[in-house]
């Protein structure tokens, strides 16, 4: 890494750019990037502390802009880093709504340990909240995502799913490429998981 054409804050900015460019649901946690930013923050901070005491004792006015500049760089680094984490958090939250309380296997390696913990805690308190709504009657907020247009929808099976029992006890065999006319409310989760496809 040549130092000559790099500036303070570059690392932090790159974190954000990479995250924004990525087309995946959630890209792998950039361990290195985050560590570099943290190290930069620390380095700047230490330099500043050293010079601040110098400044206080010598009253050398010429140091003042430098101190300010470093402070600004530090603030910027911090802000970018937290924005990075916040954006990831938003995506993790969206994942809970989309895929339910279990992290899909293909996404799991992309998360770092605290993130998995965050997901589990988030999932737990969301579930607890949904159960407690309406004096303990409970309501599933992850269902009913779109305003209902019709009671039944036509769906096509994308993969073999096997037997699926409806609320009224009727059993449907969901085989690949078969088409069914089913109650929207009950098959909505399957559609979101990609097992069924909604055809108009």
């Amino acid at each position, binding site marked *: 890494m040549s130092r000559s054409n790099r500036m303070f804050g570059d690392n932090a900015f790159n974190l954000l750019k990479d995250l924004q460019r990525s087309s995946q649901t959630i890209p792998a946690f950039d361990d290195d990037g985050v560590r570099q930013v943290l190290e930069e923050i620390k380095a700047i901070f230490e330099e500043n502390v050293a010079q601040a005491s110098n400044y206080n004792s010598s009253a050398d006015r010429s140091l003042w802009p430098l101190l300010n500049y470093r402070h600004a760089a530090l603030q910027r680094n911090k802000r970018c880093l937290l924005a990075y984490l916040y954006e990831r958090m938003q995506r993790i939250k969206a994942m809970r709504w989309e895929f339910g309380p279990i992290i899909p296997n293909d996404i799991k390696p992309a998360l770092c340990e605290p993130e998995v913990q965050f997901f589990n805690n988030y999932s737990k308190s969301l579930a607890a*909240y949904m159960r407690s709504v*309406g004096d303990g009657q409970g309501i599933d907020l992850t269902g009913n995502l779109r305003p209902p247009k019709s009671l039944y929808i036509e769906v096509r099976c994308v993969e073999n799913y096997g037997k699926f029992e409806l609320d009224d006890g009727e059993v449907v065999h969901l085989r690949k490429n078969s088409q069914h006319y089913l109650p929207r409310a009950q098959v909505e989760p399957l559609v979101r998981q990609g097992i069924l496809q909604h055809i108009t």
Partner: protein
Amino acid sequence: MSTREIMSDSENVEQAPNEHELSTEADLARAYEGDDDDDEDAEPITAQKVLEILETAWTNEMFAPELLQHQSDMLELMMSQVAHMEEQMKDLDKNDFRYVVHQMELERIRYIMASYLRCRLQKIEAFTQYIINQDATYDAADKRLSPEEAKYAQEFATNVDEYFSKVATRYMPNQQRGEAEQRIVAPNLMSHVFLKANVAVSGVIVGVDDEEVDLTPGSQHIIPYQLVADLIQKNQAKLI
């Protein structure tokens, strides 16, 4: 509760804005009365009323930049109503036209309730700390958060803090950590909203130079939210 009533609900509201002059407390009292004595005649009207209140709360919540007062009571009533209706519908023939229509109606109501609560959760997650701080300043009677939501908000705040500290903030130099108050996100209360007056309100101050406007019933306006927040609260106007 007949389907026609629900289907044409939005039109009803538009034709008869005066109905909204009834304050929410009065509605609440009546709704509870209807719930207590199982009067067959009274129930359809009250259920309708509850739905109306919920629908207004829902649209208001959707368009208001800040969190509005919670409606747990109404929500509870509606949920037991829905459960009640489902129970009754079990006896109906699946192919009966009435069954289909009723089922559809329930789906709609469920969507409204779920969407309403989701919208509130989104706001709670976005402005967690701001909302918690604000709520601490209100009296017990007009807390914006329902007890369940308050618990959720608290848990969410701790959860986020923990995550941030584990990944980043605890590796930062000491003096740089204690700036949690800088991270508080507040809603933009001066964002403009579309508003429709339910009743005549005179002398609403708009703009910085104390300009006043009289709202006539049914009239529509675009106005910064904060200036009319109390009208929404008092149900004198609603957001559209």
